[in-house]
């Protein structure tokens, strides 16, 4: 079985980083995986999206066009990709920044005010990780333990002091 995940938002929101955590979750669980970024030349702003495939089989095309799971962090990304989600797929979005005007009823849509929650809990830039917490709670694709292990791997040693903040963000995502 292959799970295709698409993460999309503005550059600087941590879209690629969140994707990297999901890819490492696959690695921790001994799955086949691929992580493919797509972004413009800008350092911040612009659009950024990221394809992650998790599978038991070798992965063919690493480019995700019709995701099983969509994580949307801004309005244009939500509007653009929500129509592409596979039937029975799941969508997670930041309801602080996005208005859901989608009328599809063949997919499950989960809203969480992740930017607001990040601000309220003094987790600057933690919106992406809060969405991941929501994702593992509602999809069960990875265990909390797997994700914690992945975060420990992905966060570089120079920023190790931020690991606990990421754990906190996951918890907030799982409980909202």
């Amino acid at each position, binding site marked *: 079985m292959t799970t295709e995940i698409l993460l999309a938002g503005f550059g600087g929101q941590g879209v690629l980083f969140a994707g990297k955590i999901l890819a490492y979750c696959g690695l921790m669980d001994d799955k086949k995986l691929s992580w493919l970024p797509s972004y413009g030349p800008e350092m911040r702003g612009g659009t950024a999206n990221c394809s992650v495939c998790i599978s038991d089989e070798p*992965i063919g095309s690493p480019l995700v066009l019709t995701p099983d799971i969509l994580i949307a962090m801004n309005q244009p990304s939500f509007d653009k990709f929500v129509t592409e989600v596979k039937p029975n797929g799941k969508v997670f979005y930041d309801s602080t920044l996005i208005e859901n005007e989608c009328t599809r009823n063949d997919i499950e849509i989960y809203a969480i005010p992740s930017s607001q929650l990040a601000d309220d809990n003094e987790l600057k830039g933690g919106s992406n990780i809060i969405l991941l917490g929501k994702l593992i709670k509602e999809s069960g694709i990875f265990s909390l333990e797997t994700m914690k292990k992945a975060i420990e791997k992905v966060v570089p040693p120079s920023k190790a002091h931020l690991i606990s903040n990421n754990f906190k963000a996951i918890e907030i995502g799982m409980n909202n």
Partner: protein
Amino acid sequence: MKGNEALAEAAIRAGCKCFFGYPITPQTELAAYMAKRMHKAGGVFLQAESEIAAINMVLGAASTGVRAMTSSSSPGLSLKSEGISYLAGSDVPAVIINVQRGGPGLGGIQPSQADYWQATKALGHGDFHLLVFAPDSVQEMVDMVIKAFDKADQYRMPAMILADGLLGQMMEPVSFPEINANAHDKSEWAANGHGNNRKHHIINSLYLKPDELEDSVTARFKRYEAVKENETDAELYLTEDCDILLCAFGATARVVKSAVNSAREIGIKAGLFRPKTLFPFPVKEINEASKNAKKLLSVEMSMGQMIDDIKLAINCSKPVEFYGRTGGVIPTPTEVLEQIKKVGGAE
């Protein structure tokens, strides 16, 4: 690990001691990784003032017998072409990496395979070839860099890894094999220090007497014959009974493999021929793969370049169709499946 970083780490493990580069998207992570790691591995990383300077530094370093490498992306490769011709003309081994992007001109920064002709036919002026390897995964990039250094030394010719922006940017799990950076004996030709204990060696590509130049080129082409005989490599996937044989290399081959699997599910006997070496082109292998096929379909991220080699390899004995996207657009499995249906399957 990211493809670009894996290329760099593999090179260091293969005993590369000198890296000269100049930044360009989408291969920059390679040079950045080299900058961090190379000095710890006892080697030299240098960001040159231009692509042209970088390739000439490679020529200089490799002339002493040390393993040297440079990397760039499409527009940068065009700039390096003079130096590559000099490397070939001087019989100096080196590894050159091209993480292709869209062209011509400055083009774009998204993946492309439109440098196939350049890599296999015209990487500079004069009569010469490079060994050209075409990986389709991060793991294969690692394996091929190691092989490229080895074969370059063995045949005294430059070798290229023809990757693309997709492979360079993507992350996949990768393992590094134990490498026996087996020392090829370069004492016969390398221009290194010798304390006046032997006649000095000259690394040169200038031969003013036509007869001498002809002899040197002819000798080189004799080696190319050995390369063609011994070094072809390809993956044959579901080709034994296929009616339609798809041909694709690099990242495109992954997309095509997904399409081939979907075609099989709906009863179309499709197969895939994936060359891992582009020079030498796997002629024997494609003839084996296509022996039962009625048609061939080449899928490329270009307007159709490898298709020429396919037609030559099978002597135009069967129809060869083409499907491609270019400019940085990646074909999708669905698109390719539509082409399979259109071209061949539904009989």
